[in-house]
């Protein structure tokens, strides 16, 4: 197992208001980034440690992309400035070193997903979902009629919706604050994969609208979702009402981000007989691949988001 190690900042660029794309490469004497690029599965995350000695705890960020570029492996994280730590991170210049640890946790179950895959993302949950979308697309064999549809919710102006367009059959976006009427706004009509933007609402408003307009095919569907907790909760409820299996990537306050402190627990339904999507498709719930931990007890229906998650079947969670 790789110890926490340094990585070198290649780029730390503001791509939307207060949203940064951080690209990392191996720094001299460390193969942390190479290792992450080789191993990372969509839905996994990376612990980022700040250089300030006063902010000790890891900042967890979902892996937004891994690239095997000509100049060497690259790890891409996308983050929003929300507090002191991310504010400091945004000041780090290319060439600077930061310490990271990863890949952490368990990602999405990428197969089998059914005929209609819905990728439901909110805000900073969208970039990590793009990584999952790319992997799903890459694994489809020619002639596979699986359809990938993205439903993306933003607070303000969209970002990464174009990237989603590269791998999805259709992309629908919605913004909570953009002014205008609740009509499909045909932006980017010229592009092959037209991202639509319905203004004023949440991603669940968007889903409801698309269903009532007959634009969303929910037969043999499954959902992959990443975003803020209230959105995930709404996605879980909607998925349940439609009988669609959903995988959600959760957020939690973390002390260690690797399973040692028991700070990040989430309440789950008692583990035994959960008829989950993942279960019916032959995988067993909550046995993480690396699991040699004997400390868990069946009477404690709690799991560590950092180690057993961050991706869970939605119906396993006590919302």
């Amino acid at each position: 197992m790789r110890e926490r190690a340094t990585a070198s900042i290649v780029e730390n660029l503001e791509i939307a208001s207060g949203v940064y794309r951080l690209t990392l490469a191996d720094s001299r004497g460390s193969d942390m980034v190479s290792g992450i690029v080789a191993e990372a599965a969509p839905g996994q995350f990376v612990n980022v440690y700040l250089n300030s000695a006063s902010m000790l705890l890891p900042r967890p960020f979902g892996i937004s992309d891994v690239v095997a570029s000509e100049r060497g492996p690259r790890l891409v994280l996308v983050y929003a400035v929300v507090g002191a730590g991310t504010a400091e991170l945004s000041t780090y210049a290319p060439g600077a070193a930061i310490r990271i640890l990863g890949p952490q946790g368990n990602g999405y179950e990428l197969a089998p997903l059914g005929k209609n895959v819905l990728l439901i993302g909110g805000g900073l949950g969208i970039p990590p979902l793009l990584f999952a979308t790319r992997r799903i697309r890459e694994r489809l064999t020619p002639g596979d009629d699986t359809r990938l549809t993205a439903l993306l919710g933003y607070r303000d102006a969209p970002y990464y919706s174009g990237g989603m367009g590269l791998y999805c059959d259709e992309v629908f976006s919605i913004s909570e604050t953009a002014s205008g009427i609740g009509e499909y706004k045909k932006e980017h009509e010229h592009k092959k994969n037209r991202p639509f933007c319905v203004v004023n609402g949440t991603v669940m408003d968007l889903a409801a609208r698309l269903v009532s307009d007959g634009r969303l095919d929910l037969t043999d569907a499954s959902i992959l979702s990443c975003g803020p907790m209230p959105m995930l909760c709404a996605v879980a409820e909607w998925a349940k009402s439609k009988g669609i299996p959903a995988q959600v990537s959760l957020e939690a306050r973390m002390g260690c981000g690797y399973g040692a402190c028991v700070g990040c627990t989430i309440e789950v339904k008692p583990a035994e007989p959960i008829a989950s999507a993942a279960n019916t498709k032959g995988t067993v719930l909550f046995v993480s691949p690396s699991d040699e931990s004997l400390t868990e007890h069946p009477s404690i229906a709690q799991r560590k988001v950092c180690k057993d998650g961050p991706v869970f079947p939605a119906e396993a969670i006590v919302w």
Partner: protein
Amino acid sequence: MDDSYRVNICGVEWRNPVTTAAGTFAVAESGKYFDPAELGAVTTKGVSAEPWAGNPTPRIAETPSGMLNAVGLENPGVDAYIAGDLRVLKDRGATVISNVAGHSEDEYVYVCRRLDATDTDMLELNVSCPNVREGGMAFGTDADTLARLVGKVRAVTDKPLIVKLSPNVTDITKLAAAAERAGADALSLINTLLGMRIDTRTGKPILANITGGLSGPAIRPVAVRMVYEVARSVSVPVVGMGGIMTGEDALEFLLAGASAVAVGTAALIDPAAPVRVARELGELISNPQVAAAIDAARVRTA
């Protein structure tokens, strides 16, 4: 790892003076980053008679050079611990200190009795957890209550018994003396300091439990002072902890009179920190002047 700085803590040989601090080491997860047998000892998470679910989340808040935790001793219960973590650690050749939690005297006694029948090397009585409503710190802040508890536990086990003291008291030497008189073979300190953070945007406490235990470098000066006070007031060995991030930090505790140290919060931030601290400390101690200064500190406090 270099074995030239072994220590003997009340009859148990440690290959170096460094252990993990309770609650910051998990067998499977930490074990990916270092071999527990490389440390002087590993101290496991507090274990109670029955499984405890711990406190609601958020359980963690960052503070300047430190953190608050209100995990509330979530643990699978002593039976699962004995069959699981303890077994794995002993099979791997680690020296194990089992940290014991309880809501009542009877619970502490029960857990210690169960552990007495195992091959755990030492017991550490956590009478200083600020995050559980009954028990925990309540046993560690009143000298008479503490003495009665330690006496009862002493009566059911011959294992070397460490009593872990709370810093949330006016005069820690009174508690130290009470524990020693009641039969403690060693003392460890400090547990976390009771603290609180409020989110100024929402006006609400960040921790669901409202208060939590402060740990990390922010508490180190308090810990060094308390180790210094206790080490010179008792004759049993002291295991010092509180914000140790480096070998030099560990050395500060040995110079204050501690016989060994524990690494806690540092391991949450850097999983391999305990073995790194042991290595750095070993390098420092290999300097004869430093070794002599540590010996002098022990003599002065003995």
